[in-house]
């Protein structure tokens, strides 16, 4: 035992004790990483909520089983997976803190998800992403491309401005000006639509390119 003690002391004499600054810097880096990850998650999740609202996917579940199918098909799964990975990394970083690891991990995960989703709804409700989209279109082409890619209409969902309203058809023009005829099942034509309204139409195209709508709604 004496030998072991002496060996330890000799090795300690040769070793260099780390300064308090080292640990302060490490702790600061951890905090910074947590803040950056939280901000990244807030941006990502609020963008997903913004995108779902912009391309009309969030309205799809109002139209029954087919609507739900379109909703799940149209979800940005890649971004959701990325958000999940970031949440797990954030949980791993926060697990260095006593207030997190002293409790079951499920509490921490549920709290992070709740907090991030809540904050993201607030951010998505502001004009933040619209401003980023407008700014990036002019100044940051690769960010603009990301927005354009993620905001494009998913299969079976069509967004446009009403040009004409008939008894069972509506003509809409998409943001690039291309017009499409929407065929509405008899008796299902909403009366409230006016020329110039922005609407979202759910349904596939037939052989002639017309949209066979099973649901349509004015954009909020």
């Amino acid at each position, binding site marked *: *035992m004496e030998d*072991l*003690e002496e*060996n*330890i*002391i000799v*090795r*300690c*004499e040769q*070793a*260099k*004790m*780390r*300064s*308090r600054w*080292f*640990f302060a810097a490490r702790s600061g880096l951890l905090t910074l990483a947590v803040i950056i990850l939280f901000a990244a998650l807030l941006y990502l999740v609020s963008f997903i909520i913004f995108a779902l609202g912009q391309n009309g996917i969030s309205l799809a579940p109002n139209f029954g089983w087919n609507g739900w199918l379109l909703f799940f098909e149209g979800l940005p799964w890649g971004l959701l997976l990325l958000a999940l990975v970031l949440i797990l990394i954030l949980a791993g970083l926060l*697990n260095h803190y*006593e207030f997190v*690891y*002293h*409790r*079951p*991990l*499920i*509490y921490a995960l549920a709290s992070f998800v709740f907090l991030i989703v809540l904050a993201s709804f607030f951010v998505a409700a502001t004009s933040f992403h619209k401003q980023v989209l407008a700014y990036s279109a002019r100044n940051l082409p690769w960010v603009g491309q990301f927005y354009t890619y993620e905001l494009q209409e998913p299969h079976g969902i069509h967004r446009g401005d009403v040009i004409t309203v008939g008894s069972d058809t509506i003509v809409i023009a998409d943001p690039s000006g291309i017009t499409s005829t929407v065929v509405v099942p008899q008796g299902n034509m909403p009366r409230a639509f006016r020329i110039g309204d922005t609407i979202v139409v759910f349904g596939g195209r037939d052989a002639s390119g017309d949209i066979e709508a099973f649901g349509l709604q004015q954009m909020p």
Partner: protein
Amino acid sequence: MDERNDEAVAAAVQHGELDAFRVIVERYEPKLVRYARRFLFDADDAKDLVQDVFVKAYVNIRSFDADRRFSPWLYRIAHNEFVNALKKRTKERGTMSVSLFDFDVLFPHLSAKETADSPARQGELKAMLERSLDAIPAKYKEPLVLYYFEELDYREIADVLRIPISTVGVRLQRGKAMLKKIVDP
């Protein structure tokens, strides 16, 4: 004989007193060698690893908060060192007995309150542990060793293992149940 408590001695080491670290080594070396042997290692391996634990503790002593208890901090370093050694060993042997994630840290547990065993019961459990420790998986063995031999409480064990306090209680209960089955099948 230094009569200062561990925390005061550690604070002295933080201010550069290497002799104070000798006091820490004298107090904890037998405990850490015992912990290492009970955890998983043979005698020589245990002594080498304990040396590494002390050197790491010395190098990182300024990260210790002297307002908190010293022993969980030191056992945390020991735990990491031993787990890394175990991982290395199992990797070399092509087996994997150290899991990276345990699902019992994920969900809350109902029956996890700290319970005090009577001294007689503690003695009985210690004797059972001494006899049958090798038959218990490391996941349950470590909290048992820390609780019954190193006399850490649930919160301190949670700090050493970085797991929820309720999970410590559950692992102790399950470990004790396993012991009973082994001793009295």
